[in-house]
């Protein structure tokens, strides 16, 4: 059975589930490698054993996390092909390149040296080992760079154009692809979010030790390094998030309208919805609390730029759908007869709106007979899920500021050697560990659900990207992923808690063999 709608929904669930799951392990890796490098740097420059103990203890926890990051990344690399084959064929010429370069330049580096980092302590000089630790940090962060360059192409496609001779997007400028503004802001925002995650993780566990008077020397130093690292990182993540919002707001007006639950276009400056209960069906907010005049300067950096609301986005989409229809019809002719010059000319004239006509095709399979009702339904579909995006965004921002606040106070107290007196700081530290994870996952939801209904914004709709699988296969694979991944995370969490409880001294060594 090839029921496209069901397969589409299940494929989206599978991608979201596996990507969100993968992203539980990646941020800690990104930040922890730098913290490990920092600890080892102090060890190498001062020669004090305690810093080596720190690097080795946190390295052990890093490894438990890293294994799952590697395992879940493996399936991601192939999921575009297995479940999104039309997407893969359509954009592979452009999107595949950063993924391949990621493997070649970054993942090889990280994975080869991570082995030496764990196994090579006694096999080389301190300086060489330190260099290797930095290579791991560099590798993991370069990895994020290339993945986010690829992702940014989906968010705001640059450097490619559709070629009717091959029926796909083809690369026109490699430099446009890699130097997209979205890619730069997104890379810094995401990798620094990883640094905050590592900071909260190390601070939380160190705080837990300090509260119990365990491993004081190690915990005090780890806590101080983590919160100091974290306070700078959280400032960075918030300012880059702001920059990203500015860039995305221009590139994807639909996402911005959804993030702010802005249904109607109003004369500037418009207010900022602090809280709202958006209703997608009625296209209005059932309830909201607004700060007047704040949104316009926040996202446009001016007081008088109009921010398009949902109504305006839909109106523009409808115009583009109508204009794109001749391009899709010409494409059908060209597929059978690539030498038809009239069709080629017709295609070129309407090419820039082809994506919108492809979106419309889901609601009006026969593009020669589109009714006003079809346009209406397709225009509605241009708006992503407003309540989810609105709230995910607020959860992410709130979590970011809570962490900044905590890290700021903790840094101040830690620098004045007053952390032990402020017991509440230590008490809440472990409970704040989930915050960065929640923020990272919410951020993914804003970025990826906010891009719907597109896989490549404005160019390729999601419904056309999916593989022609049967429903049975999809149920099988989704069930399998849920089962395997649940077992994996249970094992990971068990080991993580066990080794944290054991602490650096007693439990670090695996028990002798029987």
């Amino acid at each position: 059975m090839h029921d496209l709608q069901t397969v589409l929904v299940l494929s989206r669930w599978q991608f979201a589930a596996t990507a969100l799951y993968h992203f539980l392990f990646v941020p800690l890796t990104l930040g922890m490698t730098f913290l490990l490098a920092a600890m080892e740097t102090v060890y190498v420059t001062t020669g004090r054993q305690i810093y080596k103990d720190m690097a080795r203890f946190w390295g052990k926890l890093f490894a438990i996390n890293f294994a799952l990051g590697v395992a879940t990344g493996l399936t991601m690399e192939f999921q575009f092909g297995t479940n999104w084959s039309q997407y893969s064929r359509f954009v592979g010429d452009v999107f595949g390149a950063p993924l391949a370069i990621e493997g070649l330049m970054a993942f090889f580096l990280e994975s080869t040296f991570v082995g030496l980092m764990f196994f090579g302590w006694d096999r080389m000089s301190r300086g060489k080992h330190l260099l290797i630790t930095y290579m791991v940090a560099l590798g993991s962060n370069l990895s994020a760079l290339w993945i986010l360059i690829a992702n940014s192409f989906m968010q705001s496609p640059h450097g490619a154009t559709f070629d009717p001779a091959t029926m796909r997007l083809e690369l026109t400028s490699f430099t446009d692809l890699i130097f997209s503004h979205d890619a730069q802001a997104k890379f810094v925002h995401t990798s620094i979010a990883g640094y905050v995650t590592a900071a909260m993780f190390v601070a939380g566990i160190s705080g837990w030790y300090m509260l119990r008077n365990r491993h004081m020397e190690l915990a005090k130093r780890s806590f101080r390094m983590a919160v100091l690292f974290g306070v700078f990182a959280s400032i960075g993540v918030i300012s880059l998030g702001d920059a990203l919002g500015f860039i995305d707001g221009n590139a994807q007006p639909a996402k911005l309208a959804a993030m702010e639950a802005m249904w109607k276009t109003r004369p500037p400056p418009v207010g900022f919805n602090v809280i709202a209960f958006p209703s997608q069906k009625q296209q209005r907010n059932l309830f909201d609390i607004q700060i007047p005049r704040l949104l316009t300067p926040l996202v446009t950096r001016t007081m008088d730029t109009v921010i398009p609301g949902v109504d305006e986005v839909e109106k523009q989409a409808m115009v583009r759908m109508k204009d794109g229809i001749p391009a899709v019809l010409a494409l059908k002719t060209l597929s059978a007869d690539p030498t038809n010059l009239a069709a080629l000319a017709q295609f070129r004239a309407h090419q820039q709106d082809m994506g919108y006509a492809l979106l419309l095709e889901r609601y009006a399979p026969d593009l020669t007979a589109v009714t006003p009702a079809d346009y209406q339904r397709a225009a509605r579909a241009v708006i992503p899920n407003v309540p989810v995006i609105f709230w995910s965004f607020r959860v992410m921002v709130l979590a970011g500021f809570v962490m900044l606040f905590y890290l700021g106070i903790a840094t101040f107290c830690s620098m004045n050697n007053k952390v032990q007196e402020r017991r509440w700081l230590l008490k809440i530290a472990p409970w704040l560990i989930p915050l960065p994870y929640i923020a990272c996952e919410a951020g993914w939801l804003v970025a990826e659900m906010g891009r719907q209904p597109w896989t490549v914004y404005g160019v390729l709709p999601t419904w056309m990207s999916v593989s022609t699988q049967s429903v049975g296969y999809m149920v099988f694979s989704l069930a399998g992923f849920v089962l395997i991944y649940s077992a994996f995370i249970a094992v990971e969490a068990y080991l993580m808690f066990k080794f944290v409880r054991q602490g650096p001294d007693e439990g670090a060594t695996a028990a002798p063999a029987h």
Partner: protein
Amino acid sequence: MELYAILKVTWWLLLGVLLIGLAVMVGMDMGIGAALRYFGRTDGERRAVLNMIGPHWDGNQVWFILGGGAVFAAWPTIYATAFSGLYVVMLLLLWSMIIRPLGFEYRSKLPSPSWRNLWDWGLFVSGLLPMVIFGAAMGNMLLGVPFHFDWKLDSWYTGSFISLFNPFAILCGLMSLSLALYQGSAMVMGRGEGAVRERARGLGVWGGLGALVLFTVGGFWVARLSGYVVTAGDDPAGPAMPLHKTVEAVQGAWLHNFGAHPVLWLVPALTYVSILLGVWALRRGWSHFAWWLGALGWVGTIGTVGAAMFPFMMPSSSDPSQSLTVWDASSSQMTLLWMLGWTIVFVPIVLVYTSWAFWVMRGKVTAAHVEADDHAY
């Protein structure tokens, strides 16, 4: 020849290099994983074996991930058509492969024997199954896979999952498993001592001989198979569009290239010579030499498949004219050129630091070493 055509052939060769890198490096680790419980009878022995590749398995695995990325970048139509068509097989491959990182990392973290046994069997599955699937996938490419495209180039796979596990594909799968066992054994022999070393020698010899027998049977089988021939319209420098050519299925066509260029017989000959020499080297105890001969054996094996099929990459058994070839499944000229640049710069760098990593970690690994190192697996 035009630049675009040259680039396509270059990337076809680079795909071969990638597959060989994958087969040699990942195959070695998988052979060790699959035979872990044979190599090591006690927990101490098993930990010693695991730690021989402990520092390297993760780096080696990148050959697989890079394989996925490079096929995506250079052969996007293959990436899309093959991985979606072979859906269930791909999932079995991925699910079994992702047990491995946890198996390595978590197995020795707890002392419980049942915990460790469980991960041992996990490593067995995640070594054995992927190697069989790699080989079987290769076998299915030789047979042709039932798929076709619609006007938008959406690919439709019309076969069943079970039909991918036909006798010929299983034979290819077992051949690939045998070579992996050989490669893993050569590694364990080099870095193990005493009983572990002797068991590895025995398994390596059987793996090598088994691979040769299966290679020979497979060769005769291929000669009788229906191969594919392009009869019109596949322009080497043309755009990557698989809908405008005609292809015929012809019995024995996979030998045509060897008939036209007899020098190609040297490629399968390489497999025979290297594996036979390798078996001899294993018996003499020259494990290092045997490892490199095993790698050459993979060059011969994968090279033979490539030489037989060129220019075909993924023939369609249900609609041969829509088969994917070197000329119509690649990326654009600009992408191939850029990717070639990155490859020329980074592959030598990767090879240098990988070799350095193996050199740093060289030497024997025994149960005693493992006990002494609290970071060991």
